[in-house]
């Protein structure tokens, strides 16, 4: 059964404005995918890629997210040297090797995950952040290894670990090896739990398939950005299988919250404060100290 939905679309929301658009020297406006408001690109960037009119959270690159997450000048990227191999010598209409070469050009050579160490309001945190622009954030061997290493950076430093998910699921081109990354990443969560290190998952648009059904749903705290599509099977596959209309808001963050599947929906603007407070609570250990 297919679980990897066709989520990898080229963004159609970038509108090049005509030269007659006075007051936009860069000539780049973005149309909000939800409310269709035309937003000045710089304003959108200033507002963390959130539509100021309707609060729609647009997709972000891993680097943008790192900059949003961490205190300025504390960010270090790790594990940049890992590269995918082609264990199956996979070829569909296109060779896997060509796909990764193209993705390297488009989204950088670090595959679908970037690992960072940085401070959040003065506290060191290890983070693994999915890069959706890299083959739809699909998880193959490199992504799996990087997630495990991200957890291990937290274990070495005794600090919290954050996973920011944005993925269509497992990477088909690495076959069952991709599937096994689910087991690999999920098993490492046991080590974080044993060490009592806080593990927070932030699910963003979209978080599907093999990523949602492994480490991304194993955090001590699981939060989601507003309006994100999150689930196991893709809506199109479900629609085709059950042959009935999907409920309003199905598989969106708010739907998950209502069904008791996540802890909270958190606005991008509140993320750093939210995380700091969570880490304060989970590392206070007042009971143990008084015992």
């Amino acid at each position, binding site marked *: *059964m*297919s*679980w*990897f939905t066709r989520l990898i679309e080229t963004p159609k929301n970038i509108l090049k404005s005509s030269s007659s658009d006075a007051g936009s020297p860069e000539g780049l406006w973005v149309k909000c995918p939800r409310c269709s408001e035309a937003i000045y690109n710089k304003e959108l960037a200033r507002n963390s890629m959130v539509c100021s009119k309707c609060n729609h959270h647009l997709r972000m690159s891993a680097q943008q997210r790192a900059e949003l997450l961490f205190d300025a000048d504390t960010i270090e990227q790790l594990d940049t040297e*890992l*590269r*995918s*191999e082609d*264990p*199956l010598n*996979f*070829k*569909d*209409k296109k060779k896997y090797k060509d796909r990764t070469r193209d993705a390297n050009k488009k989204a950088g050579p670090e595959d679908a995950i970037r690992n960072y160490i940085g401070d959040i309001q003065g506290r060191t945190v290890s983070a693994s952040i999915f890069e959706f622009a890299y083959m739809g954030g699909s998880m*193959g*061997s*490199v992504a*799996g*290894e990087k997630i*495990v290493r991200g957890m291990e950076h937290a274990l070495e430093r005794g600090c919290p670990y954050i996973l920011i998910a944005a993925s269509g699921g*497992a*990477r*088909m081109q*690495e*076959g*069952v*090896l*991709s*599937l*096994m990354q*689910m*087991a*690999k990443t*999920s*098993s*490492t*969560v*046991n080590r974080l739990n044993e060490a009592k290190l806080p593990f927070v998952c932030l699910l963003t648009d979209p978080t599907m*398939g*093999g990523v*949602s*059904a*492994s480490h*991304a*749903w*194993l955090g001590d705290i699981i939060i989601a950005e507003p309006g994100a599509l999150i*689930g*196991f*099977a893709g809506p199109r*596959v*479900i629609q085709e*299988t*059950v042959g*009935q209309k*999907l*409920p309003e808001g*199905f*598989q969106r963050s708010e739907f998950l919250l209502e*069904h008791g*599947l996540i802890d909270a929906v958190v606005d991008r603007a509140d993320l750093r404060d939210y995380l700091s407070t969570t880490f304060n609570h989970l590392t206070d250990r007042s009971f143990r100290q008084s015992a």
Partner: protein
Amino acid sequence: MANSYLEFERPIAELTSKIDDLSGMGKDSGVNIAEEVERLNGKKDKLVEQIYSKATRAQICQLSRHPDRPYILDYIPHMFDDFQELHGDRAFSDDGAIVGGLANFRGKSIVVVGHQKGRDTKEKIKRNFGMPRPEGYRKALRLFKLAERFEIPVLTFIDTAGAWPGIDAEERGQSEAIARNLQELAALKVPVICTVIGEGGSGGALAIGVGDRMYMQQFSTYSVISPEGCAAILWRDRAHADEAAEALKPTALDLQSLGLIDAIIPEPKEGAHRNIEEAAELMGDLLEKSLDELLNTPLDKLLKSRAERLRNLGAFSG
């Protein structure tokens, strides 16, 4: 019961029916018939050998979901004694797509958990075509924890097209249920042996497929996505499923060469679906040996090597 045959098995089917017809003519027809039957049986053996040894990946995918292929409930009477099926997840319902319980396997108590497809229409619906919902995975987890508490080893048997892609499954946390099992199985404090006996359909298979040993029956498959699903996405056309099957490398031989399984369990020469007794014995012999080895391994060593196996999964450079 009449056998079902796949398209590529047709020459075998034709020869088999010819042999059956001849045998049916009875003894009075003389020695010539007996000789002819013997000759045709010899021919059939060669044909079977030829067809199965040359089966393409797409054909092996078909074999792994052959309508006559034995399911776990077919194997249980041949492999185990004193089976007690245990039902339900204690929270929502009893998912028929996963069965489990206590059993005796060659003198030792075990917990058995496996996917169950249905044979006829009524049972197919009852079993939801072997595609579990969250409550199925949670039932499995309950039995894994039961096994841990009473120090009973776990044998799992994988045979599913995948986890159920339905509205209800999503509402009850399909992702969470699968993820939880992966994490819990990775650290379960008893030996766990996983065997693919049919289709290993992605996350829905893996959710009962993390353990100390991983085996596949000769004509089973294990894949991140079905060939049809893969073709629909990468070729944008399900008609390319055979090419997708080749590309995905989902056969037991493929997984063995990728270093992902410990051994291939041989099947009777025409496949498990033509001789379940022999298939059950071949599987039982290997599992018994494997279980003895694991039971002789100290628990800390067992858990450490399981964690290391999982840690080392993947192929990358740098």
